[in-house]
């Protein structure tokens, strides 16, 4: 076994962002501190983004979520699109994460892209991409979260329509979006394989906004909606992946097949996991910086031993975050190469969030009795951060996935 010299001599490129992407991240960070952060407290207290959120987004030096974004695509960097997106997310969230909920378009349209027919993609995916708007995703129900095979919402065929009944929770943008992609079971005797996705457009009768926004521990400005489907009728061709042309009638039991199932959709959406971690990086890094800035001028008020400990801890926190950042970059750089990153994306999701909570909590504690006051944003970020280890799969769910990569399908099955 020998390997060519030139192979051995090739070195890794540095694990640092290119200077252009660094500059871009810096610009966005400065903007989010200046324009996003001042509204953080208001967003938390009113449980809504600031009323002028569109104007705020328009003030962004990069056209990420400006109204003119479709005319001005994001710059390209040699680091690639996926790493750029991580940098973008962290930089925006560094101001505050109210912005994340209004900044994107949700994930409903991405589900259409993954599961839909060409016709459906043209009808529901392209417009969101081309002119903006929001598309919601309704999977979770009061009775389940992690175990998505437990969908109890039903869709019953009735002639040229589907009749949907059930309750969905935690639908981001469910009250404001153009349409919701709803997962429902068309034949519970089939078990999980009866679960299909349906597009329900805004204002569709029978889709009731039971609660426009849950009352939550954190991310209070994010509109997480509870939707009630009460005899909600949609045309037959609203089932993703199926044209409605198989001649099935309400009386026959033959079920249409879809292009890509729930698993495929969830798998593709899983690519978003490192971005969840990047959000946490934003507020955790902001917490460290806020704490350092606040305590440094007061350093004389601490005993030397305590101040040394605090400085060391803040440095250890920086290191811990950079370790997470590197893992996120690594996971998404696989996508850049068109390689699968299922396990790496799970690692990213499992690795970051529990540490973000610890960073922010410790920052509150280092600040002391005032650390939990609304005078600072630390207490808000501590509340916000908790969701990161819950949605899009808790660390427990990620460990099941990682364990299976390591030990096969039975790992962690219990």
């Amino acid at each position, binding site marked *: 076994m020998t390997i060519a010299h030139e192979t051995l001599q090739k070195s890794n490129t540095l694990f640092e962002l290119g200077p252009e992407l660094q500059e871009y991240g810096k610009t966005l960070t400065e903007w989010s501190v200046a324009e996003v952060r001042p509204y953080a407290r208001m967003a938390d207290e009113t449980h809504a983004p600031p009323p002028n959120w569109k104007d705020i987004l328009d003030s962004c030096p990069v056209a990420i979520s400006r109204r003119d974004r479709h005319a001005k695509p994001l710059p390209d960097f040699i680091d690639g699109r996926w790493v750029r997106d991580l940098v973008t997310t962290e930089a925006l969230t560094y101001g505050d994460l109210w912005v994340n909920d209004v900044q994107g378009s949700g994930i409903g349209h991405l589900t259409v892209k993954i599961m839909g027919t060409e016709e459906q993609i043209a009808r529901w995916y392209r417009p969101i991409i081309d002119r903006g708007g929001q598309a919601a995703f309704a999977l979770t129900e009061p009775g389940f979260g992690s175990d998505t095979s437990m969908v109890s919402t039903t869709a019953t065929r009735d002639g040229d329509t589907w009749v949907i009944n059930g309750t969905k929770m935690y639908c981001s943008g469910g009250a404001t979006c153009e349409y919701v992609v709803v997962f429902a079971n068309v034949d519970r005797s089939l078990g999980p394989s009866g679960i299909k996705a349906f597009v329900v457009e805004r204002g569709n009768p029978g889709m009731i906004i039971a609660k426009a926004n849950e009352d939550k521990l954190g991310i209070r400005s994010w509109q997480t909606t509870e939707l009630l489907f009460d005899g909600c009728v949609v045309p037959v061709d609203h089932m993703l992946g199926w044209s409605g042309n198989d001649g099935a009638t309400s009386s026959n039991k033959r079920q249409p097949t879809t292009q890509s199932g729930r698993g495929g959709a969830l798998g593709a959406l899983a690519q978003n996991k490192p971005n969840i971690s990047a959000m946490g990086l934003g507020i955790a890094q902001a917490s460290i910086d806020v704490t350092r800035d606040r305590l440094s001028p007061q350093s004389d008020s601490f005993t030397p031993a305590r101040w040394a400990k605090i400085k060391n801890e803040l440095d250890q926190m920086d290191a811990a975050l950079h370790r997470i950042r590197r893992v996120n970059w690594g996971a998404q750089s696989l996508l850049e190469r068109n390689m699968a990153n299922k396990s790496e994306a799970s690692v990213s999701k499992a690795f970051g969030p529990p540490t973000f909570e610890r960073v922010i909590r410790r920052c509150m504690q280092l600040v002391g009795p005032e650390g939990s006051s609304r005078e600072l944003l630390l207490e808000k970020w501590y509340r916000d951060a908790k969701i990161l280890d819950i949605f899009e799969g808790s660390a427990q769910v990620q460990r099941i996935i990682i364990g299976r990569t390591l030990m096969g399908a039975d790992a962690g*099955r219990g």
Partner: protein
Amino acid sequence: MFDLDVSDDRVAVAALGRGIGLDLLSPVARAAEKQRSIPSDVHRALHETGLTVLVDESHGGGGLPSIGTHMVAIEAMAYGDPGLTMAALWAGAGAILVGRCGSPDQAFALLPELASDPTKQSVVALYEGFGRSPSESATTIAKDSDGRWRVTGRKLSVPNADRADSLIVIGVDPSDGRLRAALFAGANRNSGLTVSEDDEKIALGATRTFTVTIDAVLDDAQLLGGASAESDKLDTAVGWLRLMVAAAQCGTAQRATDYAAKYATERVAFGKPIASFQGVSFLLADSSIRIGAARLEMLDAAAHLDANWPGSEAIVTRAVNYCGVVATTATRDAIQVLGGHGFITDHPVELWYRSSAALSVLDHDPLLSNFEPAL
């Protein structure tokens, strides 16, 4: 000797406290947070238990429990709600100091009223931040050249400093480095105090807190216990007040863990109650292990205080900090077990998550625990 009290008496005290916590406090916890005060009927009922405003019989109160017993009661009440428990305790905390360390005149002036009138408040200005224990206080109570006492300092998170009928400031006498307490009451209630209200906290909303800046000159009569007060009594009484937070953390942690444990036996995923997955059950078992250790540490500190053990301060500091670690971790893990349901106010776990965090910052010493990445 090592002798863990598992007596029926101890069990009875815990049951009494749990009854108060679950029946009286828990149902109004969210309302109290919103209205920024203890509902007055609840406050009255708490006052009647004799567990929140402690006054001895000779001054018309129900008598002082031992510190250990008080901690058992506090933990049990906090099992219902830590925010209300601490709100009531903080509003009457001065009674402990006056009862333990006050002169007969001071006790007579303050205690009968506190014992009989639930609207009367006596609060203590204790915390300063910067990881300081009381003996490291930068607030000084110093005899000046004309024989009067100059009090200067800055106290944080002082409960109800605007409305309390009396306020006691803890400081250090620079001449001997021992604790002293300055009593601001009656005509002197406000002299030399600058009070500014804090922003609302992440939790504990039923207590309004204030930053109090002190620059006052006092007579001997305003020193708690007078100029010849015994500082070791004050050490114990201050330790008592600090340790109340540790007891409340234990109760909070235990409640969150029990709540999550019950949820885990009922919630089904992947075909089984989630308690059957070790990823869930081990998380809660770990909380349970830690809470047991934290409780023993807290009770050990209480026993040291009850015995007037010299050097109890360090033991109290350690207990308060460990209970803070345990409670913030346990409430966090309880949310984790509930998942999305833990994150919404339909369940009380998020309130306990916030409460334990708010309690953990008050008396935090960075030298006694560490930031450690989760992985």
